[in-house]
């Protein structure tokens, strides 16, 4: 990176550290922080959509749709979430390949599960074995995003379902009295009011989502945990210009501090949003705001 980094063996102290921390692998480490942020940026809205869908389905007047919604919410209770993460990644992968297999190779006669193997025809493989490395990485990452969205969507559905129930009935009845159709009531009354009830639950969920991001490591994505283990391990002088002992402790300390900072900042932002959403609401917080304005 820097001009004086050409011969690391003669460097000392800060200049050694500055060269060490800017090697190519460390750059990949820093980029992986971006991977985590990207995961959060994609997962949060997707999970919210899944959650909204689940909550609306659970409230549906048609019984089978309501069962699907309720089942989706209920299924994540009682089971460790990490089991879901491990399960969904394989299940989704095999499900996609199985569907492609059915469509692309209809005259395949052998069974897909042969003993301990999962066999589909070559053109049904996802991604194709001939595709470049980055396609494999993007596919792995999107599977991880989808898994996160499914699991956190169920949590969000639970929160949003509760929030929709919490909107005062009188509001909905007034809407009906004004001649609004159910659809209009949903869009103009229920949806805007629901947020202030859902926010405490959703902000809690956001904190939990942040703290769940290291599980990306288990899904086979090269994330910050992967790099911290990789870079921190003992480095022999024979294989690298920057030999050092077992520094994994320090790398994980850095991750710990990163997460602490991240949750602290989120906490501050979320408390501001809570104040903003309480404006004009018939709740204790809204009343306090009204009084404060005078």
């Amino acid at each position: 990176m820097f001009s004086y980094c050409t011969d690391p063996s003669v460097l000392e102290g800060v200049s050694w550290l500055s060269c060490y921390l800017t090697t190519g692998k460390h750059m990949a480490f820093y980029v992986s922080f971006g991977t985590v942020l990207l995961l959060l940026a994609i997962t949060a809205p997707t999970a919210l959509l899944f959650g909204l869908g689940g909550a609306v389905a659970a409230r549906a007047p048609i019984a089978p749709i309501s069962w699907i919604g309720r089942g989706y919410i209920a299924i994540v209770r009682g089971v460790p979430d990490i089991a879901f993460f491990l399960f969904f990644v394989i299940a989704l992968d095999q499900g996609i390949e199985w569907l492609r297999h059915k469509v692309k190779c209809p005259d395949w006669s052998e069974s897909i599960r042969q003993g301990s193997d999962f066999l589909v025809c070559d053109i049904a493989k996802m991604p194709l074995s001939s595709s470049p490395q980055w396609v494999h990485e993007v596919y792995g990452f999107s599977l991880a995003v989808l898994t996160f969205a499914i699991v956190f969507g169920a949590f969000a559905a639970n929160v949003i379902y509760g929030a929709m129930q919490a909107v005062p009935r009188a509001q909905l009845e007034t809407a009906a009295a004004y001649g609004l159709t159910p659809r209009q009531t949903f869009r103009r009354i229920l949806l805007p009011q629901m947020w202030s009830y859902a926010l405490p639950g959703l902000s809690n969920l956001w904190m939990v989502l942040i703290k769940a991001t290291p599980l990306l490591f288990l899904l086979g994505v090269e994330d910050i945990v992967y790099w911290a283990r990789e870079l921190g391990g003992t480095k022999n002088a024979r294989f690298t210009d920057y030999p050092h002992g077992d520094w994994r402790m320090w790398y994980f300390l850095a991750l710990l501090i990163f997460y602490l900072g991240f949750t602290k900042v989120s906490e501050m932002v979320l408390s501001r949003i809570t104040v903003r959403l309480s404006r004009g609401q018939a709740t204790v917080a809204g009343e306090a705001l009204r009084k404060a304005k005078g």
Partner: protein
Amino acid sequence: MSCLETIQAYAFRSIGFGERLLPRSDFTLCEQFTLIGSGMLWNIYFGIIAIIFGFIFANVLALAKNSANPVTRKPAEWFIFLFRGSPLFIQFFFAYFLFLQLKSLSPLFDSFTAAAVGALIVLFLNTSAYSAEIFYGALRSVPKNDMEAADAYGLTGMAKFRRIVWPTMMRLAWPSYTNEAIFLFHATTLVFFSGFPSWRQQGDALYYASYFADKTFNPFVPYPILAFYFILLTLCVISLFGMVNRRLNRHVPQAQRRRMRIRMNLIR
């Protein structure tokens, strides 16, 4: 091998009794059920010990956080923030590598790198922080009237705390504390995926479930078995804590009792 023989061979495999070698091929449903159930022993061990000691420490922390003196308040606040603000997964990794370093300094820390001790310490500290926050919240919401009544009866100091404040705090905190206990049992599944090595393939339920899923490429059998065991465990926790909840609420009029609401489980 009949199912009974399998149970004999593998029921205590996770703690080192019975057959040394894990099944390698032609996995039967019985083998999967037995081994995953055997792994549950670890989850129960971690959960119960961490809860018992965590409960005591959490009470101390909650009181410290509530104290007016910054010398006791600040450390408690920082401790709770440290463990609630960072992922448990990273805490496990950090603790494991910290213990590795300490081990090279002093033989005192030799046993700490084993999951049975090291992971237990992390789980204990973690659940202490989460429970302390729950207890602290409950302590802050002890009704003012109760305190005034205690004053009117001339109760002060330790007697007031023991007979009025603490029981009320427990009563208010109990529903959330039940959830915390359920979380903790779920969190125990992270141990063997986070640095702590499993000695001679003696792991927890998820360790064996993922072993089977890796070997058979079929996640649709071991994970539902794991789910079944955990739902069973969750039901046990709920009924046990429900009994305590009834005892704590026995003097409260029926209509006012706080219903136990079991909320969703989340990762930490």
